[in-house]
């Protein structure tokens, strides 16, 4: 699904990623953990195509195709989805209108007809129920005045609507209370299948109790320094990151 090799990236001449190698197969859930400032959010931004970062070396393959030169919307059309840590407020544009536009732009890019209105409504109803969202919520301006939990739920709602091949969840657990966390995780788990993949970026192990990863990678100082199974997350929760640092130095 996703293959990243030797990825180097910088922002304003500061090297942030220093040779990332990562392969995610269809049907897998991967987690990237690491201390603050390790480059976790940078990596997710770069996979999604944020133009503020300069990729100096390496490649990003999505289903065998190099996407590293594509615009963010082109990557989105090919099935990349990034759930933002801080979703943006857009006054005057309702959740419904925004997602309709997003879906139809994707269909247009893939030479499909616009989704018929009744089909769209049915899909919106189905997916908003999955995320336990109030109907009224859908007619509110996108993210405007939403609580932290509502914003994240709305991100996963959009993900559910867009059915991406690769979903990257950037610190989706931050700002969530336990109920919201359960709803969001449940949503992600229901969407998970053999043909898509999920990359969870998180600082804490908490979310991984609900979305259980097949692989856990530790990102430190721009490199993946350790890879393990779900139990690695528990170990990190218990022992912190210092022991890995020491292991590295040895």
């Amino acid at each position: 699904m996703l293959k990243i090799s030797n990825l180097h990236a910088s922002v304003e001449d500061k090297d942030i990623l220093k040779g990332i190698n990562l392969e995610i197969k269809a049907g897998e859930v991967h987690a990237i953990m690491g201390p603050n400032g390790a480059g976790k959010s940078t990596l997710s931004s770069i996979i999604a195509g944020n133009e503020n970062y300069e990729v100096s070396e390496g490649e990003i393959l999505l289903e065998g195709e190099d996407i590293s030169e594509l615009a963010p919307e082109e990557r989105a059309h090919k099935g990349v989805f990034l759930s933002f840590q801080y979703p943006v407020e857009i006054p005057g544009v309702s959740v419904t209108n925004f997602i309709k536009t997003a879906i139809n732009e994707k269909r247009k890019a893939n030479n499909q007809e616009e989704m018929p209105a009744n089909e769209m409504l049915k899909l919106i109803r189905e997916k908003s129920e999955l995320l336990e969202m109030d109907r009224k919520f859908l007619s509110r301006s996108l993210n405007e005045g939403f609580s932290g939990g509502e914003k994240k739920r709305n991100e996963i709602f959009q993900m559910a609507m867009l059915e991406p091949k690769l979903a990257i969840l950037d610190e989706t657990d931050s700002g969530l209370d336990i109920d919201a966390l359960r709803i969001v995780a449940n949503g992600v788990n229901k969407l998970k299948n053999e043909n898509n993949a999920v990359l969870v970026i998180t600082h804490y192990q908490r979310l991984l109790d609900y979305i259980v990863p097949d692989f856990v990678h530790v990102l430190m100082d721009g490199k993946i320094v350790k890879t393990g199974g779900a139990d690695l997350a528990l170990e990190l929760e218990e022992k912190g990151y210092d022991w890995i640092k020491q292991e590295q130095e040895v």
Partner: protein
Amino acid sequence: MELKEKLISSFMAFEEQIDVHSDLHDIRTAAIKNFEHKGFPTKKEEAWKYTSLNSVLKNDYSVFPKHENAIEFAEVKKYFLHEIDTYKVIFVDGKFTSFLSATTHDGIDVCLMSSALNKPKYKMVIDEYFNKIASKDESLTSLNTAFANEGAYINIPKSKVVEKPIEIIYFSTGKENALMLQPRNLVIVGENAHVQIIERHQSLNENPVLTNSVTEIFAQKRAIVDYYKIQNDLQSANLVDNTYISQKQESRVSVHTFSFGGNITRNNLNFYHFGERIDSTLKGITIIGNKQHVDHYTLVHHATPNCESHQNYKTILADSATGVFNGKIYVEKEAQKTDAFQQNNNILLGDKATINAKPQLEIFADDVKCSHGCTIGQLDETAMFYMQQRGIPKKEAKALLMYAFSNEVIESIKIPELKQRITKIIATKLGVNLGFDL
């Protein structure tokens, strides 16, 4: 001959044409004298520091249109709020056009300034209101006063709620090579009365037009006036809009100015308070590009206690467009407990776009709440990335952001069909079709 000389020499000829009573003659004579003395404003004056009329004044304008020009409704339908029933006072090249209009004398007066100025039955009202709030000092207002003869006359009696909006549209056909128009509107809204008015100036051809318009609005006690100005004219059109508003106790007046087109547009918007618990609202959206220029010059004169004013102007400038916002709030010593708010947000899209923003607060009372905020920036890159990440292409994402930026002002439009129209104009202006009405 220079335009100033041409206008002065036209004045006598103009007065001979029409039958005016002596009071009006005195007002006009004083006005032309003031204009003769002051001339057209130049950049040397503080109030015109950022707006030059020089390039506009070079044209050889016809001051009196030679012909009555007819236009077909089908040609101009799109400029009307045709989705709903409205009163209409329509002018073509400065002349009233009855077949495009829908005036009334049934319980309210929605008719012509020329009738009001010349017919004896209106004399008392004219004596009481005409040129009473308009400046006698400002040269372009004086110029208009000197030639004031045609425009919309609206008089809403006490407690009358006008059930449909009134549209005032000035078309210019371009049949004259260059045309100068000086419309004069008078709006009187009685106690507890309520009216909604939409004003528009529209060229139909690329020949230059210079409009120097004056509107006087009198809102009596507890009157409610919602006034909307649509400025989406051709590149050849220039507009100086001088609007003067007199508000009595507990009246609420709002003026929304939508500036999307034209070459040079200057909006002089002045609010004066004569009573307590008055509410004044001044809002605007400006979206221009190329070398267009829009200047908002506002004044709210707080002279009485316990009044509020709310200003909110949003400007988006692309290419080499230039914008000006000069917002003056004057609070007299007597105007205690004034609550005056002013906000001005600007986005510069073009490297060569310029905004000059100048809040001006002069406060002489000591127990007031006055605040102002001004921002100048570019489009939020994170927000752009967010929308692109959801598959929305750059151009559409940009449009959505600009719409979101203007949204606060759009939301306060009280006529739903007009709100829809404005959002459509914005979408067209931004060159997008989003599959839903913005």
